[in-house]
C-alpha cells in the first residue's frame, strides 16, 4: 500500500474551504444580479448585492492570506513555474485525461511530497490564482467603490468597462470551479481527493 503524504496543511484547507464557500455565494449572487428579473430571481436583488459585496470583501482578504501563506511557508514551492519541456509535459497530462485514463494507465505525474500538482493543474492554478483572481478582486473593488472609476474608458462608461472584465473573469473562474470539482473525482476513489482536502493526507 502506497504511503500517505501530508500535502494540505491546516491553513491551506481552511483557506480552500472558505474560498469555495465564498465562491459559491459569489456565483449564485452574481448570477442573480446579472439575470435579475421582475418575475423571478434566484436571490432577491437587495440580498444579492449585500451578500455579493460582503463575500467579495472576505474573498479578497482570504486571497491576501493565501498570498501571505504561500510567501512564508513551503506551500509556495508548488507554484514555481518550470518552462523546461512544458508543452511536452502538458501534452502528456492532457493525453492521460483524454485517453490514458480510459485505458487504466497510471497517471504520468503522480502526486508526491515534491509534486502536489500535475503540469496542467499547476498551469491552471497559477493562471487562476496569480492572474484571474487579482483581476476579479481588483475589478470587484472598483465596482464596490464606483466613484473611484473614471467616467469613461475607451468610449464606454467606467463601470461598464470594469464590469465587463469582472463578469468575464467571474465566468471563467466559475467554469474552472466546475472542471476543478470534476477532476477532483479522478483520484484513487471518486471521493479520495475530497477526503484529502478535509484531513490533509493524500
Amino acid at each position, binding site marked *: 500500500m502506497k504511503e500517505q503524504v501530508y500535502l494540505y496543511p491546516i491553513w491551506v484547507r481552511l483557506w480552500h474551504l472558505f474560498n469555495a464557500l465564498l465562491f459559491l455565494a459569489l456565483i449564485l449572487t452574481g448570477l442573480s444580479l446579472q439575470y*435579475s428579473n421582475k418575475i423571478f430571481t434566484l436571490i432577491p436583488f*437587495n440580498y444579492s448585492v449585500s451578500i455579493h459585496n460582503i463575500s467579495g470583501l472576505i474573498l479578497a482578504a482570504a486571497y491576501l492570506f493565501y498570498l501571505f501563506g504561500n510567501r512564508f511557508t513551503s506551500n509556495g514551492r508548488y507554484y514555481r513555474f518550470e518552462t523546461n519541456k512544458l508543452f511536452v509535459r502538458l501534452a502528456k497530462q492532457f493525453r492521460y485525461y483524454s485517453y490514458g485514463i480510459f485505458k487504466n494507465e497510471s497517471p504520468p505525474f503522480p502526486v508526491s511530497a515534491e509534486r502536489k500538482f500535475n503540469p496542467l493543474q499547476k498551469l491552471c492554478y497559477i493562471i487562476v490564482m496569480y492572474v484571474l483572481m487579482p483581476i476579479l478582486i481588483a475589478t470587484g473593488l472598483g465596482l464596490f467603490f464606483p466613484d473611484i472609476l473614471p467616467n469613461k474608458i475607451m468610449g464606454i462608461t467606467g463601470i*461598464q468597462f470594469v464590469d465587463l472584465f469582472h463578469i468575464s473573469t467571474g*465566468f471563467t473562474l466559475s*467554469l474552472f470551479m466546475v472542471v476543478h470539482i470534476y477532476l477532483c473525482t479522478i483520484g484513487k476513489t471518486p471521493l479520495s481527493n475530497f477526503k484529502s482536502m478535509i484531513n490533509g493526507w493524500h
Partner: protein
Amino acid sequence: MKKLFVLSLILLLSAALVPDKITGRSVEHSSENSRCFKCHGKIVYNYFNKVQDQHLTKRMNPYFVIDSVLFYNSNHKSLECFDCHSYDYKTFPHNSELQMELMPTCLDCHEGDEVTANYHFEKINEEFLKSVHYIRHPKEFTCFMCHNPHTYKINVRKNENIDETIIYDNNICLSCHANINKYHLISSNKNPNIIKKHDWLPDQITHFAHVRCIECHTQTTNKTLVAHQILAKDKAVKKCVECHSQNSMLMASLYKFRAKESRNQFGYFNASILNNAYVIGANRNYYLNVMSWVIFGFAVFLIVIHAVLRILIK
C-alpha cells in the same frame, strides 16, 4: 461704414428676436420687462425718495430678485412680467395690496392651449391632483413650488446631457427637501433627512448621481411626458429589479426620450442607458450571455461524456 452699421443692426435684431422653440413665437426683450429688471434684476435698486428728497440705494428682497439671463432662457422667456403680474406694478412704490393678488396657475394659460397641447397640461393636472403633495397640502401646493415660472425650462426632452438633466430635476426636489426654509412654507413638520431615509439604498452616491428622485417617487404613465403623480413614501419604488432588469422602468422615465432599441449592435440591452450609466441587470449583453451558456453547456457536456466513459470502461 454704413454697411457696417446695417450689419450690426441686423445682428442686434436677430439676437433680440430669438425664436421660441416651444411656442414658435418671437422673443422680444420687452422694454416693459427691462423696466422691472432695472430693480428686480439686481440685488440693490435705486430710487428717488420724494420725502427725503434724495436718491437712495436699497437692498432688494432676495426672493424678489429675478435673474434676467435665466428668465430669457426659460420656457416663459416670451412673456411679459405683466402677463402674470398686475399692471399696477408699473407704479412705484408698489401698492402693498398688490402682494395679495391671486397669481394665475399654469392651467390659466395652458389649459386648452393648442401651442402647448403636446405637453398635456390637463393630464398633468389630473396626476398632480392625485399626488401626495396636493393631497397633503391642497391649498398651499401649486405648480410653482417645483416649477419656478421665472427660470423653469424643459429639460429631459431637450438636453442631450442626461447628467445635467438629473442634476436640474433633482435640484427641484431638493429646493424644498434640502431647504428647511422653503419646506416650512407649507409644512411645520421636520424635514426628513434624505440621506438617512435612503440608508437602505446601496451605492447611494451613484444612485443619486445617475437617476432622478421622480424615477422612484412617481407613478409612471403614458398619459404625460413626465410623470407628475408624486407618490407617498410608502408607495415609492423600493424593488431594485424595477430598474435592474431587462424590462427596466428607467426606459419609461429617464430614458423615455432617448432612441429606443431593444439592444444595440454590440448586443447590450437598453443601450440608450449606456451613454451615461451602466445598470446591472438592465444592460446585460445578449451575445456574451449566449456565448457564456454555450461554453458552460459544452464544458458540462464534456464532463458528462468523460464521466460516463470512466464509469463504463472501469
